[in-house]
């Protein structure tokens, strides 16, 4: 799925301690390719608590099913695209 020059990122595997976050658990620690940068939005994880919300870049990241679900993947080459805020992402090497 990844073309040459693809930008690989990993979702930070942070615990959330029951707080309202916008990064689903199943993708934390997983590696994918940046599909696009959408645009900055006010950080929803601040808005949820009525706090002043700085703008954060919202990206879409594409994951292979094999990356998300390992050997149990229904079809390894199918993909899931997810919106994730920049503060959840860190650069990663291509697999």
């Amino acid at each position, binding site marked *: 799925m990844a073309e040459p020059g693809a930008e690989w990122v990993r979702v930070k595997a942070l615990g959330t301690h029951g707080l309202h976050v*916008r*990064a689903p658990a199943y993708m934390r620690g997983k590696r994918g390719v940046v599909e696009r940068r959408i645009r900055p939005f006010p950080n929803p994880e601040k808005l949820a608590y009525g706090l002043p919300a700085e703008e954060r870049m919202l990206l*879409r990241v594409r994951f292979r099913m094999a990356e998300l679900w390992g050997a149990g993947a*229904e079809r390894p*080459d199918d*993909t899931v*695209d*997810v*919106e*994730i805020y920049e503060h959840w992402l860190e650069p990663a090497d291509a697999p």
Partner: protein
Amino acid sequence: MPHDHHDHSEGALSPSGHPYRLDNDGPLTEAQAMEIAVRELLIEKGIVTADEVAAAIAHMDTRSPALGAQVVARAWHDPTFKAALMADGTAAVEAMGIDIAPVKLLVVENTDSLHNVVVCTLCSCYPRMLLGLPPDWYKSRAYRSRTVREPRRVLAEFGLRLPDAIRVRVHDSTADMRYLVLPARPGGTEGWDEAALAGIVTRDCMIGTALPKV
């Protein structure tokens, strides 16, 4: 039908054989209590009226998949519009005169090698301004958890069996964008006008759990 002789105890069935739905006599949730308190305060302070609240609800209820179907039909009919829709879904739909603010729309296109399906694993994000209220199953834990894990099996349960050659791309609508699937225009629709085309575009086609049928 008289109701004085029915047995309404738990497990009893209606005359048509369905279980009775329990009355919602439980205590209010915190969110329900907050909604009522805020609404009553806004009305008491003269910021909104009860009529305006009812009108806003009625306005939301006028939204239906027919709006989304118009968008799809125009994209099938007009390549310039389709290009604009793919480039900036929000602007293209508003240019048609459909007010979808504050929704940010992202349109994803099915092709002969790719099928798109939309889910919101975190809650129930859905393009209500184009499709109306989401179906109950869209909000169910089963659909939300299974669609990112085994989309082909989920789609098969909707009656949609995809050939192996077609890649499945699931979109988890987790944040600020809302998604509309642009199905491929089926064969046999050559020469149809937009209204006829819109007639075959169902809600499920635009979520990605069905394909238009001629």
